[in-house]
């Protein structure tokens, strides 16, 4: 465990080093840490704050302001369902209800290795309802298509 955290710490230090000269570097740093570690651990906040010459409170404030940043490890898979108007007009409310029932959890919840999250617009508004499973976007998703996607996930795991 220690070696794993040592490795993570080395990675964070490398990220901080790489962004040392950049103006307004905090968001790029937070993105890089989350992309590398999957989330932004508590211990990294102190390192980031020190490197950026800010207080831990300031860094914490930035992390918690933005929906994109996580402070705990995500589920193995993240399923996002668009909740915005263009997808609502094409049945996303019904799709969300179906997903919550199929997974047995509500938005922001977790079912086994799948996290269910809302997203507000993927920019595919002519062909909704839209979902994103990990880094793959899918359009025109009805209950049947969602069931097939979830079944595919179970098969793969």
């Amino acid at each position: 465990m220690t070696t794993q955290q040592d490795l993570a710490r080395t990675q964070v230090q490398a990220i901080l080093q790489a962004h040392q000269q950049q103006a307004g570097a905090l968001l790029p740093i937070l993105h890089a840490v989350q992309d590398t570690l999957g989330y932004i651990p508590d211990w990294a906040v102190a390192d980031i704050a020190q490197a950026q010459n800010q207080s831990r409170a300031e860094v914490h404030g930035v992390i918690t302001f933005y929906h994109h940043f996580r402070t705990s490890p995500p589920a193995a898979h993240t399923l996002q369902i668009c909740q915005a108007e263009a997808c609502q007009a094409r049945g996303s409310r019904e799709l969300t209800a179906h997903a919550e029932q199929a997974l047995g959890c509500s938005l922001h919840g977790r079912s086994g290795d799948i996290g269910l999250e809302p997203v507000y617009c993927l920019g595919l508004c002519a062909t909704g309802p839209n979902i994103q499973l990990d880094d793959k976007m899918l359009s025109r998703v009805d209950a049947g298509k969602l069931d097939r996607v979830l079944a595919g996930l179970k098969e793969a795991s």
Partner: protein
Amino acid sequence: MSAIKLYVPRDSAALALGADDTAATLAAEAARRGVAIELVRNGSRGLFWLEPLVEVQTAQGRVAYGPVAAEDVAALFDTLLAGAEHPLCHGLTDDIPYLKQQERLTFARVGITDPLSLADYQAHEGFAGLRKALALSSSDIVQTVLDSGLRGRGGAAFPAGIKWRTVAQAQAAQKYVVCNADEGDSGTFSDRMVLEDDPYMLIEGMTIAGLAVGASEGYIYIRSEYPHAVAVMNQAIALATAAGFLGDDILGSGRAFRLQVRKAAGAYVCGEETAMLESIEGKRGVVRAKPPLPALAGLFGQPTVINNVITLATVPVILARGAAFYAGYGMGRSRGTLPFQLAGNLQYGGLVEKAFGLTLRELLHDFGGGSATGRPIRAVQVGGPLGAYLPESQFDTPLDYEAFAALGAVVGHGGVVAFDDRVDMAEQARYAMEFCAIESCGKCTPCRIGSTRGVEVIQRIQQNENRPQQIHLLRDLCDTMLHGSLCAMGGMTPYPVLSALNHFPEDFGANDAAE
């Protein structure tokens, strides 16, 4: 026989409908049959009901097939090789009425070219505007943009030339050009298409802006929900820099302009320009009070041009063809064209670039083909989550900034979201308040507290608790938000709420109350 040239889009919307599978199957099927093909991954034409749209180069022009799923590929090859008819064939792409009836100035290249090919870009008038700009004085560039009548396409519709002139006249050692690509409005995707499908156009427009105002640094702030756009823009900047279109010596002119992408982190309010500046500076995306104007004290406190993607992407064609050419389109004070985005419950959703002045009904029916469900269209939200809902009685309004403002509505970024007759407008109003509560930056009270109270009040109306009193309270609350908020987030959330209440009172229990 020479290689068959095929086009399969790489735009997110095509990918989400399986374009990668279609492209891979085309390549595999060609190899299996021993047919030589040249596969180009172009942008999308914006006819999303046909995606994945496969185009085949012929002597007559490009012929469209769509939607082509992976399982359609084998049959497509059979007919291609036999020269026969195919049920998915739509004839020459350029002759498809949906495209043919458009006036594509900004989107002239989109869907035609390979987004990252500099050769392709230049073969289609690319960098003609930049070359013209390099031969002009800064003030002549600003004058050209002023004369074109171009107004901010992000929604506020402020004249771009006036903003540029303010920055050009400001004295500072460092100035910036910032592109707002935080396209968070539901029902809009034209920014995304430019970023993914014609990135050099934005680079060219920003470079021209830099020359006009004397800025040597530019930022493109792209939302994190657009990973493909971030990737394409980063690649395009690297390629353009290597080829001398960006950097310390643009095309040997001795002028410098450097560009970088900043990835946002999922906060809708960062689409507000001052919140965006805070975010680029590495802070919470909290709105700044104005004055000072960002044009005078913007990014890192320096004079900054901030424009939306479409505004900047429209600058190259204005420089290349002249201000009069662009101003020749449009109506009233809305000059030029707007890439409208047809979204939601429409049969033919997509990108429709037209001169200002056509009516909403023409967009919904002549282009959109009515609702996808075949039911009557009951309400249309124009201009994103902060735009008003329009009832059928207002569908003949021309798309013009002033005509929409007269109705208490906005054209905004040109997003059009249609709902059929099953929509519950009280629920849409409640959602508008809820979205504001989720996304408020928290700086001003009307927005931060008002949105939460708004959700509660609308819920009470929905549950028929003291309805007349609650409706009175809701109107009062909207008045406070409208006049007391620091920015458009709280200040415009009343637009969808009040328009829903005014045009669809039956959904708020107006008829029940009489019983």
